[in-house]
């Protein structure tokens, strides 16, 4: 695997691989000196064309804990202001020297295009409505740690599915790990077609909640809300917001998740976000070791030389130590 552009690049075996490696990096992160020299001399560039706090900080922390050097590119202070194209920017970054480029852009497919141009490993940190694979990996890891396994679990993804790259990546990852997924949203916030999506659909949150192990609440993306898809936010909150009454419908063991940043009082009630069964903070905490695992797999494990981890054994004979 050279790039991580989509959950499809990993498949269920690849997801397992990342999650197993994440355990090692959780241990590293728990040390008094949470740093290992694994990626010494490598450079990781974050190329963010869209605002982000947690994803960018999480990737940079991950790179630094692996002893990689980091460069940050933020649109506001760069030559993009002078009209530089993405292609020229990528060429510039490569000329300076980069081993991995972490890309976020508001248009779907930009990371894939960057991967065509760049010789560095490209990691998709969110592109338009398409995918956000590392978010799906950290969500999957968080669920696995809390519930043991995803096999046979029932997960509801609630809210603005249409504009959500998190939903698209998560549906793939949850399905690959053996969970069943129900989307709960008004019809206007669902994609026009769900052909081939391994999901059920419900428009009634109250009847779905008692049956789920995970209630995954999505952010109402007001910045992507140019068309009037919901009459008012208040009406949305009334029908699809996870308030305290609805949270009480969840089973004792069920957990509440949110990819952040939360609109408290819109899609999730402030009190629900802070309950004991809310794992929102765990999700953020797990983001760093999961991204360490992704960076290490792409840059340090040797998988870039050998195509896949599975072929290690056969390739190894020639490089006997």
């Amino acid at each position, binding site marked *: 695997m050279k790039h991580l552009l989509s959950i499809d690049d990993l498949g269920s075996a690849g997801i397992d691989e990342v999650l197993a*490696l994440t*355990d*090692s990096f*959780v*241990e*590293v992160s728990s*040390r*008094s*000196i949470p*740093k*290992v*020299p*694994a*990626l010494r001399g490598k450079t990781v560039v974050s190329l963010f064309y869209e605002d982000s706090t947690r994803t960018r900080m999480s990737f940079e922390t991950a790179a630094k804990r*692996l002893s990689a050097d980091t460069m940050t590119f933020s649109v506001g202070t760069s030559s993009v202001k002078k009209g530089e194209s993405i292609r020229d920017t990528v060429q510039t970054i490569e000329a300076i020297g980069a081993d991995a480029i972490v890309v976020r852009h508001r248009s779907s497919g930009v990371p894939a295009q960057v991967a065509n141009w760049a010789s560095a490993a490209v990691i998709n940190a969110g592109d338009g409505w398409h995918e956000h694979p590392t978010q799906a990996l950290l969500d999957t890891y968080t669920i696995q740690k809390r519930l043991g396994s995803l096999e046979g679990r029932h997960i509801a993804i609630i809210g603005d599915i249409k504009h959500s790259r998190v939903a698209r990546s998560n549906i793939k990852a949850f399905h690959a790990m053996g969970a069943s997924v129900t989307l709960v949203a008004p019809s206007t916030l669902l994609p026009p077609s769900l052909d081939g999506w391994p999901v059920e659909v419900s428009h009634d949150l109250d009847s779905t909640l008692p049956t789920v192990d995970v209630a995954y609440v999505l952010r109402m993306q007001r910045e992507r809300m140019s068309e009037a898809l919901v009459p008012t936010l208040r009406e949305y909150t009334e029908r699809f917001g996870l308030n305290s009454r609805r949270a009480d419908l969840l089973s004792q063991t069920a957990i509440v998740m949110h990819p952040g940043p939360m609109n408290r009082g819109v899609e999730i009630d402030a009190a629900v976000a802070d309950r004991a069964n809310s794992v929102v903070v765990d999700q953020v905490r797990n983001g760093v070791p999961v991204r360490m695992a992704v960076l*290490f797999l792409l*840059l*340090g*494990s*040797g*998988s870039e*030389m*050998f195509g896949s*981890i599975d072929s*290690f*054994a*056969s*390739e*190894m*004979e020639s*490089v*006997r*130590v």
Partner: protein
Amino acid sequence: MAERERGITPPFGGVFYARTQVMSPDDMQRALWRMAHEVIERNQGVDNVVIIGLQTGGVPLAQLLAEDLQQIENVEIPVGSLDVAFYRDDIGLRPVLPEAVTDISFDLAGRVVVLVDDVLFTGRTIRAALDALTDFGRPRAVQLAVMVDRGHRELPIRPDYVGKNLPTRRDEAVDVGPQGVDLGEVRK
């Protein structure tokens, strides 16, 4: 003789074919018992001694050595395990992945650390382990115990406690397990 699948530990994949048994399980047990006494003699007891096994071959040996020490001295000895994958000097030259999660739940500052591994070969794993240990604190001393020293060092590293010195050819393979120590080769 024994045929065993090799995992991703050196020499990485293939099947190990044993040619001769070098140590029986009893031999190993006696060697560990002797090494336990040497540890006590060298450190005048086991105050401050902690045992850390290297993943994966050193971990069961570390456990056995600690049990012997506890039986002789009648005190609890902290035991940990260390995976050195992230500290190897050949990252980027060959596939490197950790095999298990490191588990060192005690502070190393001021302790005497006895590192335990099954086979001492090039010394590169031990070099990585020494680097890793410094991230856990500053031990007073680090000592090295190995079941087999097979030679061919590439770094100035020597063991403090040795189960058996075993002259080998570079292309041979040594297998240490509950069934004893075997010398043989790895074939695809």
